């Protein structure tokens, strides 16, 4: 049996990939077709976006402050302490802000969606919706994935802003920099090629987190154990997907000459 195990694993992997692809294709098909679940979409936006704000703001603030304090000794050694705002701005806007926020988002929202839909699946609520004539995919999946796709970019913008505020406080721990000068230094180094690719990739991050969370939850099996597994695997796979998408986006922007 042992020689067959890798082949079976490979087969399972491609089977899973195919299921996810179908699930994703189904999303687009369902998303463009009426009837649209706007109320549920707004509710999900509130849950996924607004209720994640506290966590994202806290992590963003700490991220900016810590990054500034960690960068300072090295930059002081090179005599370019004045470049801290510029370096933090580039790091936060281009990479750290989107990726860290997306990982936090995956941890909170990916697991939440996975567990919620998983428990609905194992308690046969989804089956009940199908029986009652409601399209569970449209109501549960499309709204959540769309909400995650739309909310993560906003969360990243807020997180970046709070991170830069943390960096401003970090700079002012040892030296004195006015807010005007700090803002000028931040935007002096930033360009559209820094902001836009980073902003656009957060839509993909949000879509991936929402889609993987929904897929894992929607296809949950084996009772309560399956719910926990769905939530866990949703977080793990979402996090991995965030890095894979980040890698692809970097390659694309590099090819397009934006780096």
């Amino acid at each position, binding site marked *: 049996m042992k020689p067959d195990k890798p082949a079976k694993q490979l087969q399972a992997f491609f089977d899973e990939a195919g299921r996810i692809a179908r699930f994703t294709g189904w999303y687009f098909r369902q998303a463009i077709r009426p009837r649209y679940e706007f109320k549920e979409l*707004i*509710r999900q*936006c*509130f849950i996924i*976006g*607004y209720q994640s*704000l506290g966590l994202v703001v806290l992590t963003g603030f700490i991220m900016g402050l810590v990054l500034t304090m960690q960068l300072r000794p090295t930059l002081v050694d090179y005599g*370019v302490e004045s*470049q801290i705002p510029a370096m933090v701005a580039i790091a936060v806007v281009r990479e750290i802000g989107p990726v860290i926020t997306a990982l936090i988002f995956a941890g909170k929202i990916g697991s939440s969606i996975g567990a919620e839909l998983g428990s609905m699946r194992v308690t046969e609520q989804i089956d009940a919706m199908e029986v009652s004539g409601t399209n569970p995919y449209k109501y549960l999946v499309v709204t959540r994935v769309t909400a995650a796709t739309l909310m993560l*970019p*906003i*969360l990243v*913008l*807020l997180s*970046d*802003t709070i991170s830069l505020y943390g960096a401003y406080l970090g700079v002012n721990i040892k030296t004195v920099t006015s807010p005007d000068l700090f*803002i000028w230094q931040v*935007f*002096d180094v*930033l*360009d*559209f090629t820094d*902001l836009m690719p980073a*902003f656009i990739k957060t839509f993909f991050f949000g879509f991936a987190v929402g889609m993987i969370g929904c897929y894992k939850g929607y296809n949950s099996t084996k009772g309560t154990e399956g719910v926990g597994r769905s939530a866990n695997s949703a977080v793990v796979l979402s996090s991995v997907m965030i890095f894979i998408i980040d890698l692809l986006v970097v390659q694309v922007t590099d090819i397009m000459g934006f780096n």
Partner: protein
Amino acid sequence: MANKIANNIKLGVFVIAGLLLLIFALYMIGKKSNMFGSSFTLRARFRNVDGLRAGNNVRYAGIETGTVEKVLILNDTTIEVIMSIDEKARDYIRKNAQTTIGNEGLMGNKVVNIFPNPIRGELVKDNDLLQTVQQADIGNMIGTLTRTNDNAAIIASELVETVKRINASPVLWRILSDTTLPANLSATMVGVRSSAEHLNHSIAELQAIVSDIHAGKGTAGLLLQDTAARATASRALNNIHNVTAEADGLMQRLDSIASVLQSGVSNKEGMLYGLLSDTAFTQRLSRSLNNVENGIAAFNEDMEALKHNFLLKGYFKKQARKKSQ
């Protein structure tokens, strides 16, 4: 229901805040690139743009006034840089302004610097071509540093050679190891200092003398400053000169007499020859002189006797009283 409305408001604030931040970021970046203000175009041509690219900043007298729009290759030696300049700077940039390519800080991005020319020129118009000055690049600076480094290496090697020679010199080491040398040098220096003091003193005195002479004090001063004394001295010198001339004439005459006498002696004639050569004459003359001396002595006795004669005694006493008075 109220809770639902509150949630919707919260969500709305959250989304609007995010969108406002996005708009603010886009505005700030766009403003930096002169995207939202009116601008005009200026051009500059360089031989080497040193990595300048579209989007780099343009500064006028150190103030950011625009961005690089395009960098075009015109031919094998000319690169044209097209710059988008803020309209507000149009009233300050003149046609004779000079353009260079520099760095933002030591390792920063490239930047086009426009420097105002001290000579006032005409204001720029849209699409004008500015003058350029090619600045020394890092490569040139490294080349200069390399030459300096080579020179430093040569100097160091020569210094090493000099030190080796110093180390190999026994005389120098003897001087350096001589323990009495410092004391001697010290004593010498004391002597030199003392001599210098004396010299200073002498010079001061000499200055005082010179000052006195200038002030007309002392004989020398009198001679130099008193015109009457100078005339007297001049006259005395004239007199000396005259006396010398007269003495000279006298000597000439004596010389002629001596010549005549010499010729008489040489010709064996004249009284001088007789006095010098006739021994009988000399003897007679000697006897005659003896007789004259004897006669004078006898005459003196007679005169003394007359003084004591009663006839003439009164006369001689009268003469003696006159002399004593």
